[in-house]
């Protein structure tokens, strides 16, 4: 029974996704919905095949913008997280500013970025960066804050410096939080890049969808949406895998039993 259940767990995401597509297809057919209102999955798939080359080009462009922005997001988020997490004064001073910044809808920032960086890839990269660094910073700071005071006392009484504490305890302790935040941040980076592309770009999936919309090619628009979703899931899975690999100790206890007594 347990093995069947495991198999079911693996199959479940596919079953649900395929189920949704089936219901969608049936609904379009049964209710006779027009393709310019809601195209059926089969229409969308056809559009995807017909426009395979341009879609792939634009998707690659979006992926590159996203990844570069995300990379900057990781570097800056990590740095900011360490600063906030290891200094009480910085925490108190920076937190309201960060919350304020995070409340700004990034769509509103894109026109400003266009002013500085022009229309094109730099703006997409910058938007991806702006959306992705925040969760990383907050998570790293939280991780640093969870260091047990006793552990600090043990090391401080031995003459450890603040850097020692950070390197030996703080950062390793924050790693599970860091890797967990990457999963969230990568999808945000995608959102950032696509938003910028729909507003100010001549390349990328966002631009492609805007073009398709103005030409009334609704199935192509939906094909764009699908490609974004697939890229989002794929990168999420990639970082989830990296997370499991890097911080195995944080996932303890499920399949490993404690040994012995005393």
């Amino acid at each position: 029974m347990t093995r069947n259940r495991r198999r079911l767990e693996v199959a479940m995401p596919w079953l649900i996704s395929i189920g949704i597509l089936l219901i969608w297809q049936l609904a379009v057919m049964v209710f006779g919905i027009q393709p310019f209102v809601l195209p059926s999955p089969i229409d969308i798939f056809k559009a995807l095949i017909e426009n395979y080359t341009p879609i792939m080009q634009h998707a690659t462009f979006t992926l590159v913008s996203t990844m570069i922005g995300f990379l900057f997001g990781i570097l800056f988020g990590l740095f900011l997280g360490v600063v906030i997490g290891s200094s009480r004064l910085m925490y108190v001073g920076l937190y309201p500013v960060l919350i304020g910044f995070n409340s700004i809808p990034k769509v509103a920032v894109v026109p400003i970025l266009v002013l500085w960086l022009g229309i094109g890839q730099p703006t997409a990269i910058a938007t991806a960066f702006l959306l992705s660094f925040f969760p990383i910073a907050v998570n790293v700071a939280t991780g640093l804050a969870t260091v047990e005071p006793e552990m600090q006392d043990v090391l401080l009484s031995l003459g450890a410096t603040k850097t020692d504490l950070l390197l030996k305890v703080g950062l390793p302790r924050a790693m599970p939080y860091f890797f967990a935040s990457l999963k969230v941040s990568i999808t945000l980076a995608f959102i950032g890049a696509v938003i910028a592309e729909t507003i100010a770009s001549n390349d990328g999936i966002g631009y492609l969808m805007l073009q398709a919309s103005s030409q009334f090619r609704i199935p192509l628009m939906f094909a764009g949406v699908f490609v974004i979703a697939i890229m989002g899931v794929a990168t999420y899975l990639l970082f989830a895998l990296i997370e499991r690999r890097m911080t195995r100790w944080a996932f303890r206890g499920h399949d490993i039993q404690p040994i012995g007594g005393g």
Partner: protein
Amino acid sequence: MSAFVQLDDVALTYGSTEGTVALKGATMSIERGQFAAVVGPSGCGKSSLMKLVTGLTPPTAGTVLVDGAPVRGPLKIVGMAFQNPTLLPWRLLLSNVMLPLEIVQPHRARLRSHRAEYVEKARQLLRTVGLDEFETKYPWMLSGGMQQRANLCRSLIHEPELLMLDEPFGALDAFTREELWGVLQSIWMTKKFTTVLVTHDLREAAYLADVIFVMSARPGRVIASHAVDLPRPRTLETTFDPHFIEIVHTIRNEIAQIRNEATAIAARKLKVA
């Protein structure tokens, strides 16, 4: 013989002058190589005592001397262990035990070039507590008692002259706790480092210590000290010895009296208010 740890009329107040008074007029002296236990009602500032002696917190008044010199900052000759084993879950047991060597000089500078020697030392220490088979396990794979043994090893790896223990066995079940008393006693008997054990458990204090200090309720002050002259090594049989029971009983009565007085004072304050 002069004292190794000496507290003279020490006071400690947290926060401003209006803050919580943790200790007031605490005086005690512990000789080199002695095993001292500190007991008292909860909230009597026993843990503050730990922070003062290890130099993590400076006293508000009075002097704390360790090895004849006033304590001005963290002391490298100290090893510490708490109730919470605080082993690092991403390190194997062996590398957890070796952590202090990466911090304390001169080991820190020598660790890289003399690695084999230090590893051997850590293994030997793990052997003395019966954990040598588990050096390649992660701490979270081990039971609470085993984690606490490893914690003890970590606090001793740099051969401290002074070992500070803050209720190290408080979270363990009674059988494991009594077993670890024996383990700690045998390590102490071979190495003879000065030890200060803060505990709630009077039997634990009487089993392990040469001298027991009894502290009053907050603000904490040392109100009595008892020499425990039972022969070593002590065993669980010792805990049924009439003399052992008498010592535990005497201290129990002292603490009961302190608690009663504290309750009376609190009641009087309530009435005034």
